[in-house]
């Protein structure tokens, strides 16, 4: 047991672990993480198998990286605990038994003699030091008076609170790693989606996209209602950066898209030789439109939101309606008289192949469909630990670096009607500021009568 504690309390181990964890983190940013084995094979060839076996391809979740973090946590705990009791002693029962030689060996020190007795010396000293708001502890030893003046003593516990914060963050990370849950749901207006693992459902009341004047997206807003036991519990509009939280489940606006399963198509058919003969229709895919005057019927068979010729087949470049097109077929009785692609954005560029010279023009005027909202849902029980840990971390850091403890030790020796004053200032973290203050105090002490 003692051996284990000695091993983990060593600061050298901490330094070693920090260096190793840092280098491992660097490696993880140089090798792309969590790609497919094929990608690694293409990129690293022979080496790829080794990389995958060593879990370098998912480094931050690998067993060895986790082990390093656990070792590091143990190291932090033991280092902090073994240093805590001397610190507590220093804060609560400081050692006043210092020697003159120790004071004179300090980096900041002074000694001089005054024509005062011990009482007068102490009174003058307290007066001089008052400007610095120091607290004074005092003891007598073999006719000498020892004084310890210090302030901001809580600063010495800053690093311990930082370490506590780091541990809480690591614990939060472990809890997140084991029990966080996250999924994306695509939900259309009016739709109700049950949330797996819970007894509530979410309904999308309204979804809208806002645009900047230049056409780029400004924001997406989804109005969600949480339904539990068939009663609406909560309605809120979420947008990017402003999620909704319900019973530990958080709903984030993460993406959007169009539902192309069942668009409504506005199709205009016109007779070229007699434009007064026209048919305007709203139709679904596969729905026949009858144009009685011309004894025709037409039917949209296929829809592509972003038409492109891929190889030599029509395809779609994306799911955004950049170049919407439908494949339309025109029938007279039993016979198909023409068929082909027409484009909403290029009405004159139709690709109708006709059996007979066609007198008809078809236009795709508009496409209406619902947009769906992409909502990321997450439950992460670790996250509160993270915020708690971060709070400790910051309190500790500001205590350690913005509230640095400093002290001044004095020894007063009364010899032959005079008092010899020895003093030394000490501050691990604000040497310069202490030096300034120390000089001021000593100057005022020397000059007082």
């Amino acid at each position, binding site marked *: 047991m003692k051996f284990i504690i000695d091993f983990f309390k060593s600061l050298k181990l901490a330094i070693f672990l920090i260096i190793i964890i840092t280098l491992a983190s660097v490696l993880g940013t140089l090798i792309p993480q969590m790609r497919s084995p094929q990608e690694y094979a293409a990129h690293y060839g022979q080496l790829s198998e080794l990389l995958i076996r060593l879990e370098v391809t998912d480094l931050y979740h690998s067993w060895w990286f986790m082990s390093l973090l656990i070792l590091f946590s143990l190291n932090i705990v033991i280092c902090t605990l073994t240093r805590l009791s001397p610190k507590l002693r220093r804060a609560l029962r400081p050692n006043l038994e210092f020697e003159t030689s120790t004071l004179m060996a300090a980096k900041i020190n002074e000694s001089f003699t005054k024509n005062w007795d011990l009482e007068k010396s102490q009174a003058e000293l307290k007066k001089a030091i008052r400007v610095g708001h120091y607290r004074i502890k005092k003891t007598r030893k073999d006719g000498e008076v020892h004084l310890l003046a210090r302030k901001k003593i809580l600063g010495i516990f800053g690093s311990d609170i930082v370490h506590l914060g780091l541990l809480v963050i690591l614990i939060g990370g472990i809890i997140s790693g084991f029990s966080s849950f996250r999924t994306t749901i695509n939900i259309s207006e009016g739709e109700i989606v049950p949330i797996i693992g819970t007894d509530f459902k979410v309904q999308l009341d309204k979804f809208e996209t806002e645009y900047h004047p230049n056409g780029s997206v400004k924001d997406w807003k989804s109005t969600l209602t949480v339904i539990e036991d068939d009663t609406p519990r909560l309605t809120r509009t979420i947008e990017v950066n402003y999620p909704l939280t319900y019973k530990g489940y958080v709903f984030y606006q993460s993406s959007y898209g169009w539902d192309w399963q069942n668009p409504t198509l506005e199709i205009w058919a016109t007779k070229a030789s007699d434009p007064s003969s026209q048919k305007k229709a709203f139709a679904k895919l596969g729905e026949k439109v009858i144009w009685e005057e011309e004894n025709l019927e037409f039917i949209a068979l296929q829809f592509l939101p972003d038409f492109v010729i891929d190889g030599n087949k029509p395809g779609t470049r994306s799911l955004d309606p950049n170049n919407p097109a439908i494949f339309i077929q025109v029938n007279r009785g039993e016979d198909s008289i023409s068929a082909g692609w027409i484009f909403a954005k290029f009405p004159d560029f139709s690709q109708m192949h006709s059996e007979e010279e066609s007198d008809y023009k078809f236009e795709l005027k508009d496409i209406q469909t619902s947009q769906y909202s992409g909502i*990321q849902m997450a439950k992460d029980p670790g996250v509160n630990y993270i915020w708690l840990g971060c709070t400790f971390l910051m309190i500790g850091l500001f205590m350690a670096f913005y509230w640095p403890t400093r002290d001044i030790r004095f020894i007063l020796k009364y010899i032959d009607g005079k008092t010899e004053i020895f003093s030394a200032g000490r501050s691990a973290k604000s040497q310069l500021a202490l030096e300034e203050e120390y000089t001021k105090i000593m100057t005022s002490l020397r000059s007082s009568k």
Partner: protein
Amino acid sequence: MNESTLFLITFIFYFIAAFFYLAFMFSKKEGSAKAGLSVVTIGFFVHTMALIWRTIESGHAPFTNMYESLSFLAWSGALAYIVTEYKYKIRKVGPYLMLIIIGIMALASSPLMPKEATPLMPALQSYWLWLHVSVTLLGEAFFAIAFVTSIMYMAADSREKKGIAKEGAISSEKLDSISYRCVAVGFPLFTLGGLVFGMVWAYKAWGTYWSWDPKETWSLITWFVFALYLHTRIVMGWKGRRSALIAIIGFLAALFTYFGVNYLLAGLHSYA
């Protein structure tokens, strides 16, 4: 008058300040260094106006693309410098730091950096943009000063060892101590802005506080390097060359987090 004019005027002031500092380096006249500091301070105020102007014009925080964030970094550098200069009177650091600030300004004004203010994408529309970026860059500005003083330490130290240190030169010991002070001020700021505020914002915008994205990982790496600096120094008593070397590596890591990650590694955090 508009933002780019103000930016140009700032640039000119910083240039003039650099000339005063160079004059100070050769003539050793205190007056030149004092003039340099006044000109930097004036430049800093014009720069502040430029940033405010940009904020009003674009309606968002002035650090949402590379041009803006470089300009803001130069501003933070000038601020951190003015603060340390008034506090520690380290005139010799001025010339080197001015060179870095001018370098950043030049980079910001290069034609490669798109300057037009574009509307913000949805993920960036949050007050966390202000908190996250400004506090992080302020912390990094202190790391930048520690970087300069650490390099100066290296030079001063080898001169002192060879016994060719010039009369009136800043002592290596003082440089070492200033480096430490700057790291000690910068580290809590960097932790708060870069890591803590970053995690809070990531959680609000992406639904996860940490995703090992390259930018996140590199800011953690930077944090580890400075944690190493502080532990070796405070607990193990390292000083001088070894400390200076760690501070230099730390700033280079911060610089890589800032630039390198955007251009060399792909990730979520692809704005600036």
